[in-house]
């Protein structure tokens, strides 16, 4: 029995143990050999990825139903681990250049990934909270990692304070759900509702607060205020990881909790989700136009993308649409994560040692100076916009289809319109790169190049043969 318990969480547990060991091992690695730490971290992530892939096809619950293992969790975990690997690949050269190559970085990344993986498997609200703290706390430290630079410290503190605030919402929501149903288990909530012992208004209030708490993590409007400052202040490699990882984990938890525990609240929650999605897309895209700093622009763009994913979630309560909504969201998360790492990788490459080189104007002339990098950036911008031949387009089409089929045509229209708006600021980057004169300087090591190249290649190639991906995400069912 106990072995089975651990089997459901094996990759997470191994990763945690690896991170702890790495923390100690790093103490004995001299400052100029931090490549060892990075290599060991990547090895740990790869090991966990292998273990996760070995879990394909297995299902089950563990620790008295506190965690669950299903195809959804396996896919989300693999995505998280790949994100972790890409983040480590981006980080090493970047950290060295910024002179912040402290070994704790990798342990913290590993701890954070482990927390995110626990989040995707959480089948109990208490585990959701635990996992949220587990992946957030390392992220707070990572955001402030460029200490003693004031920007980074500000980012860390801001993220910490607002994160703690949002965790308060989450735990309060959990308390209300517990008050309404006398259980924190997701399956138990459904049972309590079915047997009629639950108090629905209280449950709705609890679900609303949980939505607020997780909304903070995925940066949905109006809980997005921290995002631009934190994304801008944090070291770029951290931002890349944060933008992809925290979103995947946050949405995974949102999907699991809402689809599994609160389908009965569909009527009450759908308008709220509708409004949130519309607001997020609208505000994220509009404010992004006004940004001249590339990190802030990408931060607002990440808010906007959270809106697109929320759009799919609006249909969560519809039993016919449920699985499609989850698949579409996962597909989009995958596309977003890949593009995201590439785009932030380019930003990291152009960032100067003193933290400059982040204005849009600094990208002028990149097309002539380093055509490959500019081409990659163009691909990422096109993918963010949703222009063929990129993965972003397929993801968006999938999302819109689900939204329309679920009957939210108005929302889909808003999505399309805001996508058109977003073309302006994404393509502006391309225009600046190719049509203006300038002397930008890109510096990156081999791993960094590999990450960008890989992201660019996958973004294009996967969009040419999306069928495999479709079958992958539609197989990623939530079991309950």
């Amino acid at each position, binding site marked *: 029995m106990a072995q089975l318990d651990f089997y459901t969480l094996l990759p997470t547990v191994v990763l945690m143990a690896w991170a*702890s*060991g790495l*923390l*100690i091992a790093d*103490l004995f690695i001299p400052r100029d050999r931090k490549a060892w730490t990075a290599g060991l971290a990547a090895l740990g992530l790869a090991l966990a990825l292998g273990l996760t892939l070995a879990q394909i096809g297995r299902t089950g619950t563990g620790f008295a139903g506190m965690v669950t293992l299903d195809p959804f969790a396996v896919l989300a975990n693999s995505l998280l681990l790949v994100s972790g690997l890409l983040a480590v690949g981006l980080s090493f050269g970047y950290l060295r250049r910024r002179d912040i190559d402290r070994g704790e970085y990798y342990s913290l990344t590993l701890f954070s990934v482990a927390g995110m993986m626990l989040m995707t498997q959480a089948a109990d609200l208490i585990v959701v909270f635990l996992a949220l703290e587990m992946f957030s706390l390392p992220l707070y430290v990572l955001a402030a990692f460029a200490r003693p630079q004031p920007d980074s410290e500000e980012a860390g503190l801001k993220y910490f304070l607002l994160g703690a605030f949002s965790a308060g919402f989450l735990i309060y929501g959990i308390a209300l759900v517990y008050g309404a149903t006398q259980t924190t288990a997701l399956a138990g909530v459904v049972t309590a509702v079915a047997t009629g012992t639950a108090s629905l208004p209280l449950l709705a209030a609890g679900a609303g607060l949980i939505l607020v708490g997780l909304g903070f993590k995925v940066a949905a409007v109006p809980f997005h205020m921290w995002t631009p400052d934190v994304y801008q202040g944090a070291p770029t490699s951290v931002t890349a990881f944060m933008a992809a990882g925290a979103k995947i984990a946050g949405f995974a938890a949102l999907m699991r909790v809402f689809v599994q525990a609160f389908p009965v609240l569909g009527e009450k929650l759908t308008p709220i989700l509708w409004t949130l999605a519309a607001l997020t897309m609208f505000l994220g895209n509009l404010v992004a136009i006004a940004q001249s700093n590339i990190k802030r622009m990408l931060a607002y763009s990440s808010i906007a993308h959270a809106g697109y994913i929320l759009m799919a979630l609006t249909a969560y309560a519809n039993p016919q649409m449920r699985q499609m909504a989850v698949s579409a969201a996962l597909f989009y998360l995958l596309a977003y994560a890949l593009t995201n790492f590439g785009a932030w990788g380019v930003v990291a490459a152009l960032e100067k040692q003193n933290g400059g080189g982040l204005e849009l104007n600094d990208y002028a002339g990149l097309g002539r100076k380093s055509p490959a990098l500019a081409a990659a950036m163009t691909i990422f911008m096109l993918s963010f916009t949703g222009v063929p031949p990129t993965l972003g387009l397929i993801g968006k089409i999938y999302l819109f289809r689900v939204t329309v089929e679920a009957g939210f045509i108005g929302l889909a229209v808003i999505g399309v319109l805001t996508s058109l708006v977003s073309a302006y600021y994404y393509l502006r980057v391309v225009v600046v790169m190719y049509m203006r004169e300038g002397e930008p300087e890109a510096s990156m090591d081999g791993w960094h190049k590999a990450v960008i190249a890989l992201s660019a290649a996958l973004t294009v190639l996967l969009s040419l043969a999306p069928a495999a991906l479709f079958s992958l995400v539609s197989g990623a069912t939530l079991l309950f």
Partner: protein
Amino acid sequence: MLEYIAIAVLFLIAVVLAALIVFLGEIFGPRHSTPRKAMPYESGMRPVGEGRRRMPVRFYLIAVLFILFDIEVIFFLPWAVTFRKLGLFGLVEMFIFILILLVGYVYAWKKGALEWE
């Protein structure tokens, strides 16, 4: 439950006694406060600046570490009471728990959190 009432009785008497002792001094002691007498004592020098200043951050670090390890110790207490029933399982579980804490301990040590100066 009765034991706690007994302790409450002792506590009350202790509070009354302590207050009584303080008031004894207040009643019988002379009071001729002058500005010089009321100055903070600094070996006869005129004090410079506030008495309560910013404290070294070391103390804060020690306090944080204390919280971590004190919780560990508190966790030990119920374990110790039931240890004879838990047997080998209890020993191994506690060993794993301590192992995790030791990671933090070794880290703090190597990073110099336990050094003064």
